[in-house]
């Protein structure tokens, strides 16, 4: 284990002058450390406390962070004790040592004081993931949420309090880029708003750290405390955790043992491709044993109790941030026990219009018996397609199926399926198919083409569809 971040109290030089060759220094240990990690950006706010002895007069402090990914512009020193007797006179970034700075601290007293050093680093990330285990009859499931913290920052963090921020913050520059530059290079960048937005986003939302009491787990997984702040949610891991460099650690953030859910089947070609897919749909609310916090982006892995003591793997899907009260939909892909196909049964054309070439003269062709001048062309027509959405349900339960399909052009959708328009060109209808049954859901599509096309939308018409 290596400490690459050092705070050194330089003892040998007077009035803030930095000794070049002969040094004597003391290295105050970290007393505590707190990591506030953002999952939307490669950004972590580190707050660490150290106990430092001061003498009256000027006390130079050296802070260095070799081989880490700290943004040098973000390093700040704050006095938690004797704040009215300690003042940072200036901060100096030596030209020959890019990952180092000196503070000259004016002290009015002789003794110890707790200081807090804060900075932004990159390389520490967190992510959420979820495991669902459904009952054999697929009515309720057990949902566990996890958070996984990965430390590639170059620094070991021992006994750190960990806070995880859920939400998207705004950054104008990437911390990882800043960390690779010396302070001189950073300053030469466009600096106007560099810190402001970042500082506001991170700091204003976050209260200063509390005391870091050692946590006795008592044999239970640590609780992860959730609280809302501004547009963000903060998860605070109870007690402290140690995450060495290059390690990651996964902790359970919540567990809901009996979450009711519905099994849905959907045909939405734009969203799921040209196939009927099966979904588990649950709600992030109190009635489901959830609803205390939004669910951050993450992968949901779904298993089902196979009724024989083991599990069946059903699938995995990434979900986006789920606000409290919103639905969680997990697409499990096609179900081999439910066969879905759209069968085109018949196609024909009518309402054909021709135009004499070079003239604004149009005539309708009726029944194919009207002979019109050969110097004319078809300029408008209607295409009819008689189709069936055919569903075969080989499961042992009645299934709910949703059909939502867009059609382009000037289209009339005729059926007795009680459809609705999801949007101006997307037709949606719902049906249920009992176990072991096959159903045909007939509809006719009338597409107006050429000169006949007057709109770019779908019109619904109720009509009995006759299949020969």
């Amino acid at each position, binding site marked *: *284990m290596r400490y690459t971040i050092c705070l050194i109290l330089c003892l040998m030089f007077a009035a803030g002058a930095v000794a070049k060759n002969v040094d004597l220094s003391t290295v105050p240990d970290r007393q505590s450390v707190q990591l506030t990690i953002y999952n939307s950006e490669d950004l972590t706010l580190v707050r660490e406390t150290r106990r430092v002895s001061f003498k009256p007069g000027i006390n130079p402090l050296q802070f260095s962070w070799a081989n880490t990914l700290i943004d040098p512009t973000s390093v700040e020193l704050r006095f938690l004790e004797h704040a009215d007797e300690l003042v940072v006179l200036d901060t100096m970034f030596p030209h020959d040592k890019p990952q180092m700075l000196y503070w000259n601290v004016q002290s009015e007293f002789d003794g110890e004081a707790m200081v807090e050093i804060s900075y932004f680093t990159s390389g520490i990330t967190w992510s959420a*993931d979820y*495991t669902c*285990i459904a009952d054999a009859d697929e009515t309720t499931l057990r949902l566990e949420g996890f958070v996984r913290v990965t430390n590639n920052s170059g620094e070991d963090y*021992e*006994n750190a309090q960990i806070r995880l921020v859920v939400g998207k913050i705004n950054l104008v520059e990437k911390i990882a880029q800043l960390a690779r530059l010396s302070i001189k290079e950073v300053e030469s960048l466009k600096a106007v708003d560099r810190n402001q937005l970042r500082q506001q986003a991170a700091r204003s939302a976050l209260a200063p750290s509390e005391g870091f009491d*050692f*946590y006795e*787990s008592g*044999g*239970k*997984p*640590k609780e992860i405390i959730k609280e809302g702040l501004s547009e963000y949610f903060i998860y605070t891991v109870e*007690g*402290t*955790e*140690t*995450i*060495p*460099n*290059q*390690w*990651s*650690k*996964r*902790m*359970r953030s919540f567990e809901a043992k009996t979450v009711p859910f519905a099994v849905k089947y959907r045909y939405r070609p734009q969203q799921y491709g040209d196939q009927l897919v099966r979904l588990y749909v649950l709600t992030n609310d109190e009635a489901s044993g959830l609803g205390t916090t939004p669910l951050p982006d993450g*992968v949901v*892995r779904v*298993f089902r109790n*196979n009724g024989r003591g083991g*599990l*069946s*793997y*059903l*699938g*995995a899907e990434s979900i986006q941030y789920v606000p409290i009260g919103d639905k969680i939909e997990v697409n499990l892909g096609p179900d*081999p*026990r439910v*066969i879905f196909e759209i069968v*085109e049964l018949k*196609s*024909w*054309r009518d309402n*054909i219009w021709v*135009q004499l070439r070079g003239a604004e003269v149009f*005539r309708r*062709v009726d029944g*194919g018996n*009207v*002979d*019109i*001048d050969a110097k*004319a*062309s*078809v300029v408008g*027509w209607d*295409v009819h397609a008689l189709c069936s959405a055919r569903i075969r349900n*080989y499961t042992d339960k009645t299934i709910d199926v949703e059909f939502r399909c867009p059609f382009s052009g000037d289209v009339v959708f005729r059926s007795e399926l009680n459809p609705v328009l999801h949007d101006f060109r997307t037709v949606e209808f719902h049906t249920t198919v009992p176990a072991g049954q*096959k159903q045909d859901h007939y509809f006719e599509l009338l597409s107006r083409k050429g000169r006949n096309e007057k709109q770019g939308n779908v019109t619904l018409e109720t009509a009995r569809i006759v299949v020969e």
Partner: protein
Amino acid sequence: MGIRTFVWMVLATVLLGPVSPAVGRIKLITLPVRERVEIQLDHANTTLVEEERIVPLVRGVNQVDFSWANTRIDPDTIIFRVVPHAEENEDAPEIHVLSVSYPPNEKALVWQVSSSASGSARVRISYILDGLQKSFSYRAVASRDESTLTLSQYMRLQNLSNEEFGESEIWSGFGQDFNKPIGINETREMLVHRFQNVPITKTYTCNPAKFDYLDKKENKLRVHMHYVIKNDAAHQLGQASLPYGKVRIFQEDSRGTTAFIGEDWGKFTPIDDEMQLFLGVAQDIVVRRTIEKHEQQHVAANAYHHEIIVKYEIENFKTEPVTLNIAEDLEYVRREVRLEPRLPLEWELGNRTTFAGGMDKEKSTLKDVVFKVDLPARAADGATEKVTHRLHVFFKNEW
């Protein structure tokens, strides 16, 4: 090989407070062996392995290491569950997973597990393992008269996971369980089910778009012979979908043995669907196909109807009567007379179509039409009857 690539280690020490997995530590470890393994193959393309081990735990916080060098476990799918005792036991220790740590550059993880009492716990670890894969194959033995067959369905489990599994319960998602070991790089084939007396239909089909011509200059179509198996209860099947797999077909011969008569890939066949198995080309049924007529009828302006007659001259040189399926892809026919397929097909049959019984409505679609023709057997004197049929079709409103 026999490399134990999965290693379990349980630290038999009470660890006071948070554990730093990076800290070098002198430790006494136990190595719990696998008590039971289940290999779940019910997902279409993912294998879930579940193993049970009896893990000694002490009161307090225990560290359980799990590593899987040289194998491809998806670490994000690993689930640790404590198997409850068969009967309610109030004294059973309360066990919780506190956290999981993942060391760098290693295929390993470290669970921190708390236990309210010292003792052993049966735990079940589930994970998705790559390289342990299944496939299906079939062996069909047709009766002498080709009216039924015995269909044996096999599951082949190939272990390229680099991990050896002793006696394991293997579940394919249907049928019976298997209790078999499977070693590294081994392949094990298991009989999932044997379906007896499955009625089959032997069909002869020509379809120029799909099966092409046998001799294009002579206008002779290629005639395919198929066995058709319907996956429903009436045909002794219909319990589950038939997975994709190779079907090797044999036929009982007069000596009481069987002869190999062909093989084909059986497509995934849901319940109530048909599995069609191509056995070979039937050269004793000769079908000559010509387009006898193509005329266009002016509708208006540049719009025309196209009248087409396709003629089939058929001879059966077999000694038994057969039924021939004549299938046509109407898009193909339309292209043959150089109509650009810009518009959707609009067609209707003309009254000069000669097939008795008309179109096979169950097999035909908007694009593909199928007709059945009964062909008499070759006469005893060797003479064959030439049967002629016509498909009369109008492609309407083309421009």
